[in-house]
Every structure is written in structure tokens, then in C-alpha cells.
């Protein structure tokens, strides 16, 4: 599948025009992970946003150790550190062989936001919706 066709199906990019999607696609890099590989480590500075394109990752808290959610195709990882500039809130590791992602460096995304505020507004709004959905999932999981 063409990268733009995939990005169009990712909620993070909902509402972007074709021209805006082109700009996002230009800063994406594909990265392949093997089962057990770490995408982000809890407590370390986050520098990249990951979009799962194939496979699954698990979001894992270190203390006490527990998996809080599995994220599959179309889901994003690293958005909290992008929003609050804090350290990564969890460890994320690949649990399927292979797990494929598209990766965007924060600095490139922030530069894009500065160049085009419309893209910045839409993506930040969509990140808020994604965080809301994840919170709803967690609330439903703990019923």
C-alpha cells in the first residue's frame, strides 16, 4: 500500500488535505522491529513518534511490571512525550514478528507545525482524540 494511502487511514492525520499528507509523508521513515525489540524505554527522553503499520506492540509499565495495552495497525506511540515534552511514560516493545512502523522525529514534526499551523492544529487535535480513546479503553478495561 502506498504510504499516503496508509496515512489517510490513521486517525492522527484525519482532516489533512492531500498536500498536507504529502508533507507528512516526506518526513516519515519506515522502521522494522523484531519480536522483543524496544521502541521506547520508560523514563528516557522521547524523540520519535511511531505509527504501527503491521504487527503489534505492547505498552509495558516497569513498576509494578504489567502490560497495559496492545496496540495494532494504525495506532501511535510516543504521543505523550511529544505533547508534554516529558520522559517516556512506558516501555513499548514489539510482540509480533515482524512489526513495522513509520517513524517521525519530534524535531521534524515540530518544524512542520511551525511552517504550517493548519497541520499542527489538526494533528494536535487528533492526538487529543487518541489520548481520549486510550483513556476510555483503560476505563473500560478496569470495569
Amino acid at each position: 500500500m502506498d504510504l499516503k494511502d496508509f496515512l489517510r487511514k490513521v486517525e492522527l492525520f484525519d482532516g489533512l488535505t492531500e498536500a498536507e499528507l504529502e508533507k507528512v509523508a516526506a518526513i516519515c521513515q519506515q522502521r522494522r522491529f523484531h519480536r522483543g525489540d524496544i521502541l521506547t524505554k520508560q523514563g528516557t527522553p522521547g524523540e520519535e513518534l511511531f505509527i504501527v503499520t503491521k504487527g503489534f506492540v505492547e505498552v509495558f509499565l516497569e513498576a509494578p511490571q504489567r502490560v497495559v495495552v496492545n496496540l495494532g495497525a494504525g495506532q501511535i506511540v510516543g504521543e505523550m512525550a511529544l505533547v508534554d515534552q516529558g520522559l517516556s511514560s512506558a516501555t513499548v516493545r514489539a510482540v509480533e514478528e515482524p512489526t513495522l512502523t513509520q517513524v517521525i522525529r519530534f524535531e521534524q514534526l515540530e518544524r512542520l507545525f511551525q511552517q504550517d499551523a493548519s497541520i499542527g492544529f489538526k494533528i494536535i487535535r487528533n492526538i487529543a482524540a487518541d489520548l481520549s480513546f486510550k483513556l476510555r479503553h483503560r476505563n473500560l478495561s478496569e470495569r
Partner: protein
Amino acid sequence: MASYKVSYVVIGMDHPGGIVNLDHKPFVGEQVRLSDLTFEVLEVLEIMPARGGFHYYHATCHPIPTDISSDGTDQKSS
């Protein structure tokens, strides 16, 4: 084309569930794979109004029993 963002919550075992995008609405009886296990959907609810091309669903599911074959792969029980 619509996309369906689904929150899967597992009952009947200690499992964190998952979130996945589908190209179709989830349905009762559907079998889904979340990382290393397969589950059957028991209930489907819309949890947020659709926005843009996205629909938001919550599905409750339970594990489908599997046997481990001699080569180490999961085999669904008949």
C-alpha cells in the same frame, strides 16, 4: 473509505486487551488476534460519535482455547 478504531477488552482472563484499526465494523462472533492470542467478540458498542472518516467502537471478547502443536504453533481447538 471509513476506518474503524476498536478498543478490545478481554474478559475471562488477565489480558490487557488492545486497540486496532479495522476496515470494517467489528461484529459479534468475529475472531480477532491481539498480539499472541485469538479472541471471539461477544459484544460491540459505539463509544464515541464518528468523526471524519473514523468510527469508534468498543468490543468485549473472550479467549478461544488453543492447543500447542508439536512445532510450537497455536492450533485452535475443534
